[in-house]
């Protein structure tokens, strides 16, 4: 095993521990997000985004890392829009997403294993149909485009706006949460 794969394994272990400790290996806890009883998914996800956003911003600002070395997923507008819509339906049906399904399966939940099987079938089927899907799959390609570039704002200003929006959302959610 190469060093890079060893790092992948260690990062994955940390990822799995955090998801399980947050309770995100449990389908019933995750779907609370969609029925207003438990906004754990949103809280974990947006605290993580804020931490990474602020961490990478300041590491770059202090000259400790070069953000150009971070791989930013490219934008394919329509496939990502449609992919998101389809994914959302699957998320409510399954109660778990791909990463959390693995944590569920690893903590004994057979429904997590079933979701993993479904993922393999879904991705595999789309792969087999790739010749037909390819025109759509590669459509509306914009390359690497970020929110600061889209809105023509400095990176730091967008970081601040996202932080402000997330903090506001945390307060609003706390008000609407109705534990079952």
């Amino acid at each position: 095993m190469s060093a890079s794969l060893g790092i992948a394994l260690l990062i994955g272990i940390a990822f799995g521990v955090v998801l399980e400790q947050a309770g995100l290996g449990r389908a019933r806890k995750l779907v609370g997000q969609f029925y207003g009883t438990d906004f754990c998914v949103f809280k974990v996800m947006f605290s993580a985004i804020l931490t990474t956003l602020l961490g990478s911003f300041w590491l770059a600002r202090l000259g400790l890392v070069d953000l150009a070395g971070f791989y930013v997923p490219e934008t394919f507008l329509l496939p990502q829009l449609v992919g998101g819509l389809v994914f959302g339906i699957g998320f409510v049906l399954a109660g778990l997403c791909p990463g959390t399904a693995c944590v569920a399966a690893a903590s004994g939940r057979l429904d997590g294993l079933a979701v993993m099987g479904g993922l393999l079938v879904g991705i595999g089927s789309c792969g087999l149909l790739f010749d037909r899907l390819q025109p759509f799959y590669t459509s509306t390609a914009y390359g690497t485009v970020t929110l600061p570039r889209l809105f023509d704002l400095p990176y730091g200003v967008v970081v601040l706006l996202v932080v402000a929006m997330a903090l506001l959302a945390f307060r609003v959610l706390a008000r609407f949460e109705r534990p079952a």
Partner: protein
Amino acid sequence: MQRAYANPYLAGVALGLVLLASFVLSGRGLGASGAFASAAASVAAAFDANAATANRYFARYLADGGFGSDWLVYELLGVVIGGGASALLSARWRAEIERGPQLSSGPRLLFAVAGGALMGAGAMLARGCTSGQALTGGALLSVGSWVFMLALFASAYLVAPLLRGLWR
């Protein structure tokens, strides 16, 4: 006794630090669905190696060694080890089928497979899932990742009332 779950905001900060470490150490973020794509490509290659390498979607997962040397496969293997160990150490490991109070086990597993298949199709089109796009791409402010994240939550909130019987 089973231990209580961590504070979600603290867990989120920890998750953000893991993601940041991944960027700094590997230049890439977290992911999950990519490992399933890699597995699907290897399954296809086991059935028909020539057809799989001729398939332009599978071919890229079969290049540079395929499943056995894919970064995301090792990362997801780590997720399984870490998630399992964490559940065991916190006395939360339990063999069961998590389901809504009105749903029996058989239908629950069918819906889980169907949901997984839809998420697989969505993640394939979007080039990533909640980990690779929403979380990782979202933290790097990628426009496509934010479009994916907003679309997935919008559609989940739209269908959730229709699927209430599954969970409530």
